[in-house]
């Protein structure tokens, strides 16, 4: 129920943002639509921990800045490789173990890997992620498990 209420509020906020009109009729129409969509979603059982992980919001503001910093660093590295005339790539595949306990945690980890340039998650299972890395250093950085630990902390069980 909490997830349904929060998704109704999120939908209404999104509606307000896209409309930009604040007349009583349009406000109530928007609220009606938001509540209806959240009710349909609840009836279809697509609004749950996994579909609308609102419980992660607070910790996202710790994790996202760190992820942004990592993205900037690795984008810079990949850009330097691209403009290097010798193109010093050493592509390889590496299996990274995941320590997350929930599906949304594993998805966050896989998406974080893909989002950082230089590493792409190819195959995701519950225990490990198959990663294609542009350089050997990138694969080693991932294998050190720093990102894995941070995603697990973001997930909030440890």
């Amino acid at each position: 129920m909490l997830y349904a209420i929060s998704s109704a509020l999120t939908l209404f906020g999104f509606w307000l943002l896209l409309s930009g009109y604040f007349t009583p009729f349009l406000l109530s129409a928007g609220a009606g639509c938001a509540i209806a969509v959240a009710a349909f979603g609840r009836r279809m059982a697509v609004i749950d921990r996994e579909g609308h992980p609102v419980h992660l919001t607070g910790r996202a503001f710790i994790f996202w800045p760190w992820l942004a910093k990592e993205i900037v660093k690795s984008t810079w590295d990949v850009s330097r490789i691209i403009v290097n005339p010798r193109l010093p790539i050493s592509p390889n595949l590496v299996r990274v173990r995941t320590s997350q306990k929930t599906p949304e945690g594993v998805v966050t980890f896989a998406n974080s890997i893909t989002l950082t340039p230089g590493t792409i998650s190819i195959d995701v299972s519950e225990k490990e992620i198959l990663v294609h890395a542009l350089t050997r250093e990138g694969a080693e950085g991932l294998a050190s498990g720093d990102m894995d630990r941070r995603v697990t902390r973001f997930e909030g069980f440890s």
Partner: protein
Amino acid sequence: MSALLDGLSWVCLLAGGAFCVVGAVGMLRMPDLFTRMHAASVVDTLGAGLILFGLLLQAPSWQVGAKLAVIMVLLVFTSPAATHALAKAAVARGLKPQLDKTGDESSSS
């Protein structure tokens, strides 16, 4: 203040454009699909991110700014999903990534 914002905005827009060009050059230089995807991800992270941030500083009202922020969040959630789908589809169809041969210890699959 507005001159400062304008300057910062221009720096972001130019840097974002530069990263887009670098990403495009990378797409041409890289040898196979997977390495090209690494080059493409330069475009949709820092390239798009810096351009959107530069535009955000130019936003005439808070609504336009908030919409740009929503676009940024949307990109951050959708682009890895699309990249992962592409990579997984390529592997499922039997495309093998070209791996570095110099010292293979981790190329297990």
